[in-house]
């Protein structure tokens, strides 16, 4: 559905996107994972037609986005990172304006507005000014404002920034439902949990480069270990950490030591060490690696620290 080929975008001397190439298939829930400043929003803005690339091509259903912009705009819906709503207007008034921009009128528009507000549980606040909404409610409205014209491709640029878990979950469920109904979604985030939960395929981006691309399983197979072990960083575990150093990667963050064993290292050897030091088993958590580990492996930095 969407093809990007060697897309490059610069802001002065800064290269925001450096030769990005990717395909997004129809019905896919594609995630763009990367830290702040990685180039996610720039990539979204290029796809949305807000900016033009210095080099490379972007096509939607075979049509170049630059030359077929008016057609593309009808097929695209953008959920901006900001809450791009008019705060002094009511929810209905906001949706009416954005619907009319896509040529929607009359009963059709009213029907879509009612359905949209119902879908994000805002029907009872339809006539309230948006500035009186909570952050989560504003985010939900921000989302449905991009859906009134029923786009084929929805671009979500970090749509859950700064909201409560309940609202975030509501947004996730709504997006999952839309995706099940056939909507193609590109979802940018710096939360690996979101990408893990929502996305069928993920592109890891940093410093304007697409570092890795694939399903979660495909990305995890790039790791040189299948399991990782977490334990608290305490004086009691310090000797253990020192002994593990030659056998894998050790990273300490938030008082937790994360041990990723080198290929060939047997976990039985690890547990023998813990027994020898009389460390109780409940200190240790063995888990499948996450996208955080993938990012760390690819960039040498933690996603949270980047």
């Amino acid at each position, binding site marked *: 559905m969407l093809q990007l080929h060697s897309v490059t975008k610069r802001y002065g001397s800064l290269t925001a996107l450096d030769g990005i190439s990717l395909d997004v298939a129809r019905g896919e829930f594609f995630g763009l994972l990367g830290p702040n400043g990685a180039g996610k929003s720039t990539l979204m*803005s290029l796809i949305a*037609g*807000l900016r033009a690339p210095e080099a490379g091509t972007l096509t939607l259903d075979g049509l170049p986005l630059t030359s077929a912009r008016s057609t593309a*705009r009808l097929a695209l819906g953008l959920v901006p990172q900001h809450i*791009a709503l*008019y*705060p002094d207007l009511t929810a209905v008034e906001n949706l009416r304006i954005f619907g009319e921009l896509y*040529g929607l009128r009359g009963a059709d528009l009213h029907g879509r507005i009612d359905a949209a507000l119902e879908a994000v549980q805002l029907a009872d606040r339809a006539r309230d000014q948006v500035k009186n909404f909570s952050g989560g409610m504003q985010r939900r409205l921000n989302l449905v404002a*991009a859906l009134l014209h029923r786009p084929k491709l929805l671009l979500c640029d970090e749509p859950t920034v700064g909201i409560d878990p309940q609202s975030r979950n509501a947004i996730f469920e709504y997006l999952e439902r839309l995706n099940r109904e056939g909507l193609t979604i590109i979802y940018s985030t710096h939360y690996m949990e979101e990408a893990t939960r929502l996305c069928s395929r993920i592109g890891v981006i940093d410093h304007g480069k697409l570092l890795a691309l694939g399903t979660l399983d495909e990305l995890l197979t790039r790791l040189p270990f299948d399991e990782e072990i977490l334990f608290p960083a305490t004086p009691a575990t310090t000797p253990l950490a020192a002994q593990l150093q030659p056998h894998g990667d050790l990273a300490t963050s938030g008082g937790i030591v994360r041990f990723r064993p080198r290929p060939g290292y047997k976990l039985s050897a690890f547990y023998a060490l813990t027994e020898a030091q009389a460390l109780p088993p409940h200190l240790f958590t063995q888990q499948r690696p996450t996208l955080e580990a993938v990012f760390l492996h690819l960039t040498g930095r933690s996603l949270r620290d980047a």
Partner: protein
Amino acid sequence: MHPILALLRKDFLHFRRNKAAVSLTFAVPFAMIWLFGWIFGVNRKDSGPSGIPLAVVDASGHAATAKLITALRAEKTFRIITEHPSALPKRPLAEADLRPLMEAPGAPFRFAVVLPADLVSHTRLGLHLIFLSNPRNEIETQTVNGILQKTIFSHVPELLGQSLQANAKRFLGEDTLRQFHRGIARTVASTFGGDADALERSMAAADFGFGAFTQPRDESLRRLDSPAADPNQKPEIKKKTSTADLFSQIVKFDTDQVVGAKVRSPMATSLVGGWAIQFLLFAVSASAASLFRERDAGIFQRLLAAPVTRAHILWSKFLYGVGLGLVQLVVLFVASSWLYGVEVLPHLPLLALVCVFAAAACTSFGMLIASISTSPEAASGLATFLIMFMSAIGGAWFPITFMPEFIQYFSKLTLVYWSMEGFSAVLWARQSLGQIFPILGLLGGITVVVMGTAIWRFNRGRIFG
């Protein structure tokens, strides 16, 4: 640290970081004071009104009037016009030319003096002059009246002598009058010395030497005669040195208000346009600053991702500004009608038309400010400065003739000036659509140029990221 001190420190830190606030607090007031002092000629010798066009028609045929016209030319308040401004080949102005020229749109002068054929008559004692005016601005009109009377009265004695001669000739006959002159001249020459023949010739030419008594004695006293003199001076001094009272009884001024004679509330009618345009400029500038709010909220991203172009956004803002301005102007004029009796309703269609063009010009100004500013605070500071500057030199506060002549040329580049011209043309001069068309054209031209520049800047600026 005490909470109040901590909070105080916070405010100072914010202030220091806010370039717009710093410039509004220090740089803008300083620039304003300097600029307005310069505009109004504070502490300058050439301060006061200058270059007010004054048409002078001399139909009297008296030799002494040439001196009067020379004196008027020497007065910096006036720019004397004695030739028809558009006739080809060039010819002197005639009395019949004055009224049509003063009534025409963009009149080349709004004041005229006619020295008629009966300026000096043997059928009555004293002089007869005709003064035509379009007293659109009261301050300016009073100034013109004052300086004109002063200049004329200081040259009256010579003309008055001619008037006396004419009457004496009629009553005594030419021979008896000649003998009278000769007798007086010889008596004066034998008593005080001098050439009796020269004295006789002077008397025959009606030069009785009154001018020596009536001319102000030095430059400082001469300025005191002027209405533009220092208001702090005591009025008694002015009274002593003025010669106006002495001659006002024997100079007959026929005054003729050519334009605006039927206006019911002249003062309010002449002032309301200036008020209106200032309010409008502030309103539309604030409205254009909403572009920054929408940019900061990311709304432009959403809009531009939809089938909406930058041009759509800018033109919708422009049309909104024009609509807002039109409503505001109409409300203001209707209020002035209700409060001060300005006659608005009979001229409403044409007034609304001028309002549309003025609102368009003002809105384009607001858009230009937004396009060249980097933040709403910067836009607000710049708009305040420019609005006050344009209002001052455009004539919204004082008549532009109170400024040096070269600034008066810049006045005509401001939309304040042309908007006020439009309002005045409709409400004061009661001109027709055809007559106000050039003003509408100018306002339209200003709109096109300013809005074009704004759009060009928007496409290269930061508003759309």
